[in-house]
């Protein structure tokens, strides 16, 4: 008879550790499973930021993290998308908004009407038909009624100041009674079947039925597994260095993060309530640390304050679940922080583990399906990042020429080929980004399908022009009635009350 899993030990740090602890506690705490955390020293600095996708809303709801509270405490702001600038020579920036574009008509996707109109001379960007993109550009929060909901799925992710975010999640976990083990991680005793115990400095040890590695890139438990093998993705994802820095708060909070390509990588700009977080990603073979730092204020057009923190980055993947040890987040797969996916990977890890939670502490056949699923997610996310690089139209530097010509994984190659041929987005299993997201970045980067659905040609041209104008008018009207992010933040996360009212 199976011996049920009664205890879980999470070895980890920062958001991955505490989100996982909360997730497992919410799911299995009531069933009597003990969740404990052995926390490793944080690698976060004051400059760090968590940029998240809209799915973070769902994760927070699941974990019982109140939106207004976390925004206030972690100096967070909602963001409706990411704007990509300088990826395509002189082409204007585009917005990857978390929303659909246009509405289908007579069973034909909007994209095809747009392609047809474009062929007929229309010069309106696809993103202009997106409520989310329009709201993001105006710094408004896409909150709307049922009428707009039939047309748009606009929603938002967040930027959080990383250190206070972790403090808030940790303190919630501890308030709920999740035990934080006092002690310093020293290593693990492993056999072929898995971890026997986790060792602490001073000779003590902790054991559990299931171990979770949430230590990030270090993969402190996973790397000790006899079967461990790390598959390096550095050949296709070009950046291997990262700088985190801080700039002053933007005077009007924009509704998006900015992703600026530069000669040796890209810069992410993430507005927060009290400051602006800046990340520079680059290939150390192209740009040195000091060159990058000198260029950062110029490229970001922000004045950089305080310490800038440099770190290495090694992208790649490993088998997440080996024996009785499950790696979650960066310990399982590491991507560039492009597209705000880092906490999403943690989210995927948690929810997949919850649904595949082992029924037998002695034998865990769930590992295989867990690993397939996580690899699928990671590869799809990697392909999304690769698409940005591959579709770049910068011909001004060797870095961009090189990344354009990197051989693509077959899945991505066929995905791009199909889209280029007929505007159809192939959606795989374990896909984070949906059709509208792919559409947004593919069109944004200039991959315009060569043909469109002939059914879109049935509409008389005058009627189509009217159809487009109504849609644009509707979007403009809807968006002008939405609250600004600035105002939303003042009300959701108000600063302390002033002494005077004038």
């Amino acid at each position, binding site marked *: 008879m199976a011996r049920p899993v009664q205890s879980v030990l999470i070895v980890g740090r920062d958001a991955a550790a505490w989100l996982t602890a909360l997730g497992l506690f919410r799911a299995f705490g009531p069933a009597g499973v003990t969740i404990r955390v052995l926390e490793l020293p944080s*690698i976060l*600095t004051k400059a760090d930021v968590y940029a998240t996708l809209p799915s973070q809303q769902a994760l927070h709801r699941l974990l019982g993290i109140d939106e207004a509270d976390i925004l206030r405490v972690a100096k967070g702001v909602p963001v409706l998308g990411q*704007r990509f600038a300088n990826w395509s020579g002189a082409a204007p920036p585009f917005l990857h908004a978390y929303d659909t574009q246009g509405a289908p008509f007579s069973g034909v996707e909007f994209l095809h009407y747009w392609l047809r109109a474009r062929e007929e001379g229309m010069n309106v960007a696809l993103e202009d038909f997106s409520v989310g993109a329009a709201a993001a550009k105006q710094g*408004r*929060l896409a*909150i709307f009624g049922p009428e707009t909901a039939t047309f748009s799925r606009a929603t938002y992710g967040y930027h959080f100041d990383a250190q206070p975010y972790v403090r808030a999640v940790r303190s919630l976990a501890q308030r709920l009674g999740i035990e934080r083990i006092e002690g310093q991680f020293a290593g693990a005793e492993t056999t072929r079947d898995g971890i026997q115990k986790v060792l602490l400095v001073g000779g003590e040890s902790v054991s559990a039925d299931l171990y979770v590695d949430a230590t990030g890139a270090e993969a402190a438990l996973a790397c000790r597994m006899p079967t461990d093998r790390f598959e390096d993705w550095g050949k296709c994802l070009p950046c291997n260095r990262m700088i985190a*820095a801080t700039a*002053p708060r*933007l*005077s*009007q909070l*924009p509704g998006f993060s*900015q992703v600026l390509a530069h000669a040796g990588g890209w810069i992410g*700009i993430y507005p927060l309530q009290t400051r602006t977080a800046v990340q520079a990603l680059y290939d150390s073979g192209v740009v040195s*640390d*000091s060159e990058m*730092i*000198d*260029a*950062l*204020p*110029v490229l*970001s*057009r*922000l*004045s*950089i*304050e*305080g*310490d*800038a*923190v*440099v*770190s290495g980055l090694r992208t790649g993947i490993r088998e997440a679940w080996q024996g009785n040890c499950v790696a979650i987040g960066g310990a399982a797969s590491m991507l560039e922080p492009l597209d705000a996916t880092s906490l999403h990977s943690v989210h995927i890890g948690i929810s997949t583990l919850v649904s595949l939670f082992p029924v037998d502490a002695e034998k865990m056949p769930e590992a295989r399906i867990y690993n397939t699923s996580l690899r699928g997610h990671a590869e799809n996310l990697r392909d999304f990042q690769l698409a940005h690089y591959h579709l770049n139209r910068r011909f001004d530097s060797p870095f961009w020429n090189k990344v354009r010509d990197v051989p693509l994984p077959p899945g991505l190659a066929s995905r791009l080929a199909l889209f280029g041929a007929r505007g159809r987005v192939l959606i795989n299993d374990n896909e984070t980004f949906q059709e509208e997201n792919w559409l947004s970045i593919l069109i944004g980067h200039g991959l315009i399908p060569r043909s469109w659905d002939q059914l879109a040609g049935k509409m008389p041209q005058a009627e189509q022009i009217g159809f487009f104008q109504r849609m644009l008018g509707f979007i403009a009207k809807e968006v*002008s*009635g*939405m*609250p*600004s992010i*600035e*105002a*939303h933040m*003042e*009300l*959701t996360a*108000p*600063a*302390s*009350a*002033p*002494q*005077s*009212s*004038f």
Partner: protein
Amino acid sequence: MTNSVKNIVVVGGGTAGWMSAAALSKVMGTSQYTITLVESEQIGTVGVGEATIPMITLFNNVLEINEDDFVRATNATFKLGIEFPDWKKLGHSYFHPFGLLGVDMDGIAFTHFWLRWMKQGGNLDYSKFNAETEAARQRKFMRTAEQKVMLLPRINYAYQFDASLYAQFLRKMAEQRGVRREEGRIVKVNQAPESGMVQSLELDDGRTIRGDFFLDCSGFRGLLIEGVYKAGYHDWSHWLPVNRAVAVPCDMVEPPIPYTRATAREAGWQWRIPLQHRTGNGYVFSDQFVSEDEATMKLMSRLDGKPQAEPRLLKFVTGVRKKSWVKNCVSLGLSNGFLEPLESTSIHLVQVAIAKILAMFPRDGFDERLIERYNAEMHFEYDNVKDFLIAHYHVTERDDTPFWNYVRNMSIPDSLTEKLELFRTRGEVMAKAGELFRETSWFAVLAGQGLMPESYHPVADVISEDDLRLRLSKVRTGITERVNGMPLHKDYLETMAQGASASGPRGQGATFESATPAPAQTTGGFQGLVNR
């Protein structure tokens, strides 16, 4: 049937006199009526009423005054409201704006929704939901009719102007419309022996001015209303104990700001009214609590610019005539009463009187019922303004001088007690129709003075918490967008002075689009480079 009232005589040529003459000549015309204004250059005008409230635009519109001409002619600035520093307590300040607090929803005032949100732990000041306050904070101004953006709140405003220039402006207009101006000092008033009606005025040069209807705009002394008719005076100095004002203009030390400042002082308060070319100042005080000399000295030591003249002292008693209209004589302006300029109501009360006189114009003679009606209505106007003014003094935490101890502890009119109690218990004073100061004004002043309601209207509890926050944030959004789109007041005035119309907004500091590029060599901003 012939009109029995054909000759109208305005006594006195100050602000009230010329406002009356200009309005009557525009509305009644001078073809069927003769309008004569008697004034003496030997008698100065008081002209303290340099600040106004928005209703003045209605008056100017009736007169078909071009606003830009008027602003240029009177050295006017725009006024979004009044700042009240040190009234609640020393070091505190609040703003009483023209215009609305938020947007009324579901049939109740916005303030109830704000109060609910506040009780739940929100702490964004109510003033953040008023566009005029936000614009005043940033010293911005714009006439919103010039910008065709829908859905944004409008900007309500009045003016701060040179009252003597305004009188000159109106005089020119009135004379063009046929008003006769007679220069001379009135030495004798002749009454009809039986009826007691005023028949004529004798001037110092021996001329006689005959009239059927007399408007007494002679100032504090009330030449006809008191001098002839002994109408009597409701003395309100128990509640409004200030009885002196010392006034002096000074040089500007900064571009004019779009609001008046009324700073509480040890025995009254000090006004600061920015005009285009100078700053008007004055200390309104009670000589029971500070001597005239000391008050003058204090005022002179608290000017922010070089004084442009010798300080001028005015004496008054707060209150109102028991009757504003007696027989064929109506008093307007200072001759009818004085409620001190704290809320800039002097010119407004003249305007109200003019509107009522026009509405009840005695074409065929003087009907006692009409006169009673007029007197009752005017009394109502003064009485409500009085209560509003008293609230400024009485609702306070200040206990640092005998004056403030007096006003904080004095007995107040029952009508005001009722309002304060209503406000305390349910967040509204339930102002009656026809009262000049509406809920928004009461809220701004009472909350500003430190009286925060304990509860609010139950309708505000009906919506969900998310909906509440959404509604509040939409209101706040409209306000910030409105204000972001406004130019600075000084730039707006400059553009107007050049004869052009409104200008656009100026830059706002760092955004994605307009971030100041930092030059490459200024990486000194880095404290250092550290490894993770």
